[in-house]
């Protein structure tokens, strides 16, 4: 109960602060099994993607987050596990630990969509870091899932890494065309294609 209320509060706060505006350019907000993958510059990234989804979809969409950062106990852990119901993965998986790709696939098998940041970490520079291979392995084990690129514009400027106070800029989320893994596509081809599709949604650099 308190978690739901807090989630609603946080969504509305994010919308108020960033005026977040979703542009469904390549697909409609439909209830399908999807992985929304986005560029990553701020801790608020998954909150705005989540807030931009219609409430009916939001209930069935879970962010994927790094366990090493979020599972340090206290408020952070409560927030990520109870409020956002995140899939927490180990970004440097050990032999004996749970397999991150399997964890994500399990979530998809229970009919929940995911929000994923395939750069693997927050990008402090411009454009986009190379993608980690997890997104390919996930596509390989769940080939029927749609991969939807989401370009988040400006949020990295609202609250850049290390900043304490957000600046109230307006954010835009552009949702692109869904991609699926082609039968004979290699890892590097798929990573290039998904990264290219995301970059295409970015506004012209200046």
């Amino acid at each position: 109960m308190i978690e739901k209320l807090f989630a609603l509060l946080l969504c509305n706060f994010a919308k108020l602060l960033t005026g977040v505006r979703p542009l469904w350019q390549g697909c409609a907000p439909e209830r399908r099994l999807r992985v929304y993958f986005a560029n990553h510059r701020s801790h608020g990234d998954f909150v705005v993607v989540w807030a931009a989804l219609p409430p009916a979809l939001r209930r069935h969409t879970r962010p994927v987050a790094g366990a090493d950062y979020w599972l340090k106990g206290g408020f952070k852990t409560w927030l990520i596990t109870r409020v956002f119901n995140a899939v927490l993965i180990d970004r440097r998986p050990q032999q004996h630990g749970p397999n991150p790709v399997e964890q994500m696939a399990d979530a998809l098998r229970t009919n929940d969509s995911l929000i994923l940041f395939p750069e693997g970490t927050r990008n402090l520079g411009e454009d986009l870091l190379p993608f980690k291979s997890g997104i390919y392995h996930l596509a390989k084990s769940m080939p029927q899932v749609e991969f939807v690129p989401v370009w988040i514009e400006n949020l990295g400027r609202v609250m850049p890494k290390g900043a304490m106070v957000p600046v109230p800029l307006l954010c835009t989320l552009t949702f692109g065309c869904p991609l699926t893994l082609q039968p004979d596509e290699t890892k590097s081809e798929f990573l290039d294609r998904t990264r290219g599709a995301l970059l295409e949604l970015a506004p012209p650099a200046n």
Partner: protein
Amino acid sequence: MSPDQTLFNVFAAVFAALAVSSGIAVVLKWRLAPGASSAVIDNLNARINAWWWMVGVLAVAFWIGEGGIIVLFGLISFQALREYISLTHTRRGDHRALMWCFFFFLPVQYVLIASHWYGLFSILIPVYAFLLLPISATLGSDAERFLERAAKVQWGLMICVYCISHVPALLTLEIPGFEGRNAQLIIFLVLTVQSSDVFQYVWGKLFGKRKLAPAISPSKTLEGLVGGVLTSTALGAALFWMTPFNAWQAALVALTINIVGFFGGFVLSAIKRDRGVKDWGTLIEGHGGMLDRVDSISFSAPIFFHIVRYWWA
């Protein structure tokens, strides 16, 4: 007529004019074949509906009084600055400077206007922000495109905060024989300049042929410009009774602020064109963003303020 009575009558007249426009828009829509839709007419309807809201909000602010007007224009500045900075490219190192803009210079500018401190509100941004913002940006330790970034932030603050704050600053002027009526100067400025935008749109849509500068603003035409500016100059002259000006002075002042206002829209169009967008935002349906609506006001307000201050105050 008491000042309150004057304001009441002016707003009543504006609402009546809106009612007439809404009537015309309904007739235009109705004359369209049933089921058919026209983008121009839908946009016209959206624009008129938005005008009802904008005039309504303005009326509430005027009814509250000086505090209401200052807060309203402070919020307008806030939204305009948000739209401006959202579309201009800054880097991580500018975060501190942007915080100063939003959380210090913007509110302090309006507090200074509320306290009628002309000596400081007229130099706060051109002097203090101009020098302090680049200092705080250097603390971000990022020299890439430094001059460009510093210029963009300063420009945004000048247009969206400094210039727009000169609308409520009209309340601080002490004009002999005009005591208690300064709000009417705001009405004169806003009505003249905004009606100029509307008349340019109407003249352009009806008679527009020769494009002025398609590279900067594809919709502006020579016919729209001349017809619009002259019509709203005539309107300004007809409003002389609510100002400290006589009729020909009112016409000259109106002509000046209309021309400056036109170029305000033109300059901000050039920035939009450069950033590859059509509108600054989506806040006001049919019009675009806040900055799309106040671009002409932001250029004409300081000029109008200083004309009145130099010759009448």
